[in-house]
């Protein structure tokens, strides 16, 4: 986080772990062979394997794995609550770096990356593209100042579901410090559209452990509301409510086959991402296999 330029920061993080750890959910025409299929009427004769036809006098269509057509949308929460940080950096900076790192990483693999930032409503939307300058625009949008008086998880997800029609990867980066009544329904709607959804929850260690020891007025960073809290009295209840809230999130994600990861801002980002990618790689192929069986383009 000591590097001020977000793009450089993302590049440094990406170069910290290996690339190419995922597969495309689509079949395409690339160098990696997938399978042969018998020609049926209506197939494009361009994809016939003419060499095999010469040898066997039968028409087969040759299929390859498509490695370049991943469409990833990064949905990043930039509400005021993300501005909290008990360390040298805030949750927002951590989330921005995470999003930028993923975007840079995907762009290097020629994948299309889009961006949705939101607080109480969607503030920026960049469709998933792979073209020169797109990454720069995406990073500029990430550097927008924090705003909004509350965090609304419903509207951005609904808007992404309406806007993004092609299947792809949706990565939600947020602290999820908001009521999750509709979260389950909206995430399920995304999943039903065929999107693969990853939830990355960014939290400050002080929010996790509530490590305050002095009575004070606590000010809500979003609404400005003041509440007198004595941590000695309130910690137990806080931790209990926090755990209950997280369990509800995990339960929802688990039910929808959504990957849920909690990033603590005191953990180095490259390590956190490496953990995430490793876990994803372990499960990725199975998911790809299942997703690839649903058909090609």
């Amino acid at each position: 986080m000591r590097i001020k330029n977000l793009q450089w920061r993302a590049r440094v993080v990406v170069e910290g772990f290996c690339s190419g750890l995922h597969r495309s959910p689509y079949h395409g025409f690339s160098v990696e062979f997938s399978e042969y299929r018998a020609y049926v009427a209506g197939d494009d004769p361009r994809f016939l394997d003419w060499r095999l036809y010469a040898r066997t006098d039968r028409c087969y269509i040759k299929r390859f794995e498509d490695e370049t057509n991943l469409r990833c949308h990064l949905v990043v929460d930039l509400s005021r609550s993300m501005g909290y940080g008990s360390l040298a950096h805030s949750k927002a900076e951590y989330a921005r770096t995470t999003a930028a790192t993923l975007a840079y990483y995907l762009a290097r693999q020629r994948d299309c990356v889009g961006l949705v930032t939101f607080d109480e409503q969607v503030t920026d939307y960049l469709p998933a593209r792979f073209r020169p300058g797109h990454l720069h625009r995406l990073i500029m949008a990430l550097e927008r100042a924090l705003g909004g008086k509350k965090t609304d998880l419903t509207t951005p997800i609904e808007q992404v579901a309406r806007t993004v029609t092609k299947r792809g990867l949706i990565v939600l980066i947020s602290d999820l410090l908001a009521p999750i009544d509709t979260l389950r329904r909206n995430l399920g709607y995304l999943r039903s559209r065929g999107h693969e959804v990853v939830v990355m929850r960014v939290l400050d260690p002080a929010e996790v452990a509530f490590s305050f020891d002095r009575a004070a007025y606590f000010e809500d960073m979003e609404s400005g509301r003041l509440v007198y809290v004595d941590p000695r009295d309130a910690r137990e209840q806080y931790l209990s409510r926090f755990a209950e809230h997280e369990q509800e999130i995990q339960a929802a994600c688990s039910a929808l086959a959504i990957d849920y990861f909690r990033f603590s801002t005191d953990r180095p980002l490259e390590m956190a991402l490496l953990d995430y990618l490793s876990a994803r790689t372990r499960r990725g192929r199975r998911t790809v296999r299942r997703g690839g069986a649903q058909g090609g383009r």
Partner: protein
Amino acid sequence: MGLLTPLYIAGLAALSLPLVFHLIRRTPRGRESFGSLMFLAPSPPRITRRSRLDNVVLFLLRAAALTLVAVAFARPFFRDTSALDVETATGRRILLVIDDSASMRRHGIWPAALDEAENVLHQLRPNDRLAVFACAGSMRCVWAFDEQRQLPATSTAAAALRRLRTIRPGWSTSDIGGALVQASDMLDAFTDERPTTDDADRQIVLISDLQEGASLDALQSYQWPGRVRLHVHRVGPTKTTNAAPQLLVDPDQSEPGRASPRVRVVNASDSAAEQFQLRWAHGDLPIDAEPIDACVPPGESVVLSVPRPAAAAVDRLILTGDDHSFDNTYYVAADEKEPLRVTYLGADAADDRSGPRYFLELAVASHPDRATHLHAPAADQRLSFPNEQRPHLVVVTDAPPTDRVGELRQYLRNGGTVLYVLGRGATAEPVSQLMQCQGLEIEEAAVEGYVLWSEIRFAHPLFEVFSHPHFNDFTGIHFWHYRSVSIPPTDDSPPPNDDPQGVQVLARFDNGDPALLHQSVDAGNLYMLASGWHPADSQLARSSKFVPLVLNLVDLHVPRPMKNQYRVDEPVTLQASNSHAARTLVKPDGTRINVPADQPVFRDADQPGLYRLTDADADTWFAVNVSAAESRTAPLAAEDLEQYGVRLGSPVTAEAEAERQRRLVETELENRQKLWRPLIALAVAILLGETWLAGRLSRKQRETPNAGSN
């Protein structure tokens, strides 16, 4: 028990501060920003240990010290421990100034002024010091500070009042400014054996009508003493209309005793009427003539012609129609000019503009105070100078015959004045006879171009008026022809001899020849000009120096006529008497005063009217009138005095005075008892004890850290 400054007791409210600080519920001052309060519930406020009083003894000690300090600042005293008396504690210095000028003669004012003075004197306390002055014209002491010592303290007021009732308003002019300056100086410098407790108790009480004409000029350059206050008691008439006439001196008046002199009528600005009548009178006898109406709006003045009755003599002008008569009569003495007789011995005619007579006649006719009669006898006419017809000045421009020289010589010996002009072709013989000089030579001087006057004796009375540098430039007067006069010194006159044979050279030409000579002949004076003033000889007649030179020559040797109009208290210049017998002056009220023959000035013209100075030769009349300033009777605002820096005192009610006296007694009691000193000392002692106790408790607390602190 009393308190001198009870407001300081309010400081006891500070006692509640420690309690308030202790009992105030301490609220957290910290503030933490947090991402979301959705998991947090508000905590109930918690009462801390500091809300309880831990050490009551320390608190009581501090409260006691605060109480003592507050009470000490309130400056307490015991009322019954001292028998201090108001009368012995304080004393005022009062200088009562009563205005007895002419305007105080108005109806009803003087009794009111005496009533005011009585009120002031009745408020005198035995310890007060009093002086009374009357201030019209000059300050006159009625009752001095020192006179009080010879009387019992309680009878000062009555005695001063009796003295005050003996004076009456005069006719003098108010000089309130000068009176206040003198009074404040006297009061500021006054000291006696008793110290006063309050410097503000030096006060001037002025009882006056304070009319517009009262002069305040003396206050303009005066620094009013800070510890003297002025209390003005104004008195005024019930009716305010007042107007006064003044006869104007007409500088262009060519005819003495003009038939319609101009009169200015001044109406006071607070008058209610504007229609007045003017009429002439002689003594107490009214003149049978129609009065002249004068319409003068209030605050304005009007000048109008008031014709004298042709058939009767008049000596006063009387105005009617206003409420106050003190300034309604304007006295007029006979205004005939004294004659100035000049005899001219010359051949030129009066209308010959190239001859000297023409210019001489113009010059002497311009004398402001005299009516000039110039007589030019024929050459063969014998001169006769009887006493009553003797000329004041004889001017000779042509050489007289021998018998006429003898007559001139005799005229000189009898005190006459001769101006001898050496004309063209003048010879030495008649001049030698006239001057009784031996070896005198006169010849026509050869002049190249012109000569100027130089070496003028400005110390001589004739040239004294030209001695100022603005006027002593004679270089603009050119002389083209003159006669050279040489008078050889006699053997017995000591060298250096500037005045040969008793002849003074008053001016010389720039080549050293005498231009103007003077010789005293017994009681007479002979002046000899070496050149004529007419244009054929010089530019003297047409210069600005000629008229003053001739008039000065007349005034130098002819008694100055007496002025006949004066104001009250103005010094009257008396005409020198020819005889050595004492003169008698009769004042308007009939008082006769013997005036020595050599007394030049009469200073006792203290009432308006006609004064008669009886000499051996004749009676001389002069008129004295009330000053015009006294007729401006509209009241002056007392605040105008403040503009000159006078510190005015506010009127003091009986209650306020009693309260002030009570405060003075209390201040004196407190000053004597000084109870605040032991109270402060006790407070310091308590604070020392509190410090010791607090230190001990603090040490004990450090030694047992787990124990509760105070």
